């Protein structure tokens, strides 16, 4: 069952240097209970895409008229981008969708206890009494594996370690029972051994709560571990998407292939690392045609720099937008 449909999302920012395109013609869908990984490097627009789902982008952002985000809830469909007042947004923000961020220290208010922050949002989004909210919060803290949850409830964010803070973030995000959890680089600031614990926890929670996750990361290894499907973004466009096995085992788009080649792998220590040539262009100088053509090893002389490639099916539910894939059929 489809939970969220994003269609032709275009987000631009008005800046002093002109109008910058951050996200261009992005379309995807998330089913209930599914983990969709959104991978890309800095400036690829993955965070802007995610924030659009809750209209959290700053005020200088502009959504073009054809952009459409539909949320299918039991109470009926919600057209997210048509919501204007913050009272209306409550259904979406913290209601149907919760978000956890990369740096948990920056996301908790430093002068309010963890418990009070958890209770505050429950009071807004549920009809529980204050006491029930407190009980539910402690229960959630226990559920995410925090020792002495009753004590932590009265502590401040700075008193918790990094891994613990991220667990508390997750507890807070899930206590309102959202249908979709947006996780924006949730493990990037953590050490590997702690990252492994948090990823395990998230996997457990998906199966227990049955919610969907939009998992944003730059780390393909993390994607391989948690995602069901993956969409690869580059300079504001989705260049390839499909089931995680297919995309990682037989990537079609030259950018996905390049990313996989550039990653140091532990089981192939003798193979040299192959960087993707050149640098990511500045958003002010977006290349015309295919956004990747300036760095692409398979660039076609007079096509890639002038026209934009459409998404082509290269397998079951697996598509890539590339002319090279177009002409040779399945390039695997």
């Amino acid at each position, binding site marked *: 069952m489809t939970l969220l449909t994003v269609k032709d999302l275009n987000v631009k920012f008005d800046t002093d240097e002109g109008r910058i395109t951050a996200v261009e013609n992005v379309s995807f869908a998330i089913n209930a209970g599914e983990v969709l990984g959104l991978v890309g*490097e800095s400036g690829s627009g993955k965070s802007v895409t995610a924030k659009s789902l809750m209209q959290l982008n700053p005020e200088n952002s502009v959504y073009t008229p054809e952009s459409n985000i539909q949320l299918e809830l039991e109470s009926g469909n919600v057209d997210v981008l048509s919501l204007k007042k913050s009272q209306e947004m409550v259904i979406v923000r913290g209601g149907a969708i919760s978000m956890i961020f990369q740096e948990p220290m920056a996301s908790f208010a430093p002068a309010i206890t963890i418990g009070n922050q958890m209770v505050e949002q429950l009071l807004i989004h549920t009809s529980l009494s204050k006491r029930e909210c407190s009980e539910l919060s402690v229960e959630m803290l226990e559920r995410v594996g925090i020792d002495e949850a009753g004590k932590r409830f009265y502590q401040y964010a700075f008193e918790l370690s990094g891994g*613990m803070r991220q667990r508390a973030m997750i507890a807070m995000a899930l206590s309102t029972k959202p249908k979709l959890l947006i996780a924006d680089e949730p493990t990037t600031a953590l050490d590997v051994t702690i990252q492994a614990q948090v990823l395990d926890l998230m996997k457990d929670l998906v199966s227990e709560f049955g919610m969907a996750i939009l998992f944003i990361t730059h780390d393909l290894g993390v994607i391989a571990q948690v995602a069901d499907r993956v969409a690869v973004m580059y300079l504001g466009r989705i260049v390839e998407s499909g089931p995680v096995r297919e995309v*990682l085992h037989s990537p079609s788009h030259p950018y996905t292939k*390049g990313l996989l080649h550039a990653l140091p*792998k532990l089981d192939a*220590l003798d193979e040299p690392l192959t*960087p993707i040539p050149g640098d990511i262009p500045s958003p002010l100088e977006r290349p015309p045609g295919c956004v990747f053509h300036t760095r692409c090893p398979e660039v076609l002389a007079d096509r890639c720099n002038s026209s934009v490639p459409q998404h082509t099916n290269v397998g079951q539910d697996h598509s890539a937008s590339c002319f090279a894939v177009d002409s040779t059929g399945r390039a695997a």
Partner: protein
Amino acid sequence: MTEKPLIRINTLNVEFPLGRTLFGKPPMLRAVNDVSLDIMPGQFYGLVGESGSGKTTLGRAILRAVPISSGEITFDDSDVNYDVGSLAKKELKNYRKLAQLIFQDPYAALSPRMTVRDIIAEPLEVMGLTQTREETDERVRDIAAKCRLNLEHLRRFPHAFSGGQRQRISIARTLVCNPNFVVADESVAALDVSIQADILNLLQSLQNQLGLTFLFISHDLSVVAHICDHVAVMYLGTLVESAPTRKLFDNPSHPYTKALLSAIPSLDPDDRGNAQKLEGEIPSPANPPPGCKFHTRCPMAEDRCRKEVPQWRELSEDHFAACHLV
């Protein structure tokens, strides 16, 4: 090995006071605890550990950027022999020309108000290594070319560059005074994957061209595995294992090394969840556990581990570990 090590570290301790007390000594935080290691000339030496393991402090101690509490660091190339802990002012100045640091964040490391040429030339001018402007310019152009920056780049300011280019500028600035030992502290951690590979390849080719010795500090085991020929693993201020890269990755001995290796998320979606997971979190370095520091998280810990500090032993040639159970 008949060669003499370039850097020899003997039971090094680095301590920081925790606050101040009116009388007596304040409690001390031991950031580096009895560390001994040798770095050979021309080696790409990797130092791995999680946050709070003391890897950065160790790197800085070698450069004399933090005071050494006890123990010895010697620097010995064929020309000079320094006891790094007790350098006189003049020797320290000379040592700075020989041992240099590449920073983690190329956005913070470069002054936004200086041109790239001035940024790279500054160390030469400060250290008085060149006499004339022509000479300075020549050395700047020379190192810039080695770091794949062109003449056009030298006239611009750092804001015009991407992360990867900035890191190349930062590397050029480090190498312009011809050091023979370089500490690279998380030098690719802030970069995107597609750029990271490029900088790693650059570091490797510069090492070959200029005969450098590197101490490469990183939290990322797969990066270290690719670029280093020797790896040491740190946990809470102590070394737990050290070996040539191949040996360490093929045959890790210390339970912490094993856990670190298996915690790296595999790129294969079919290889999920069979990792050996560590329980708990890293204890605070201000209050480290007694005995083996890893025993609070170790899946194999015994009574002995809680009381006795394990010895640093050679398991096979050049492969050391500190664990009672190996």
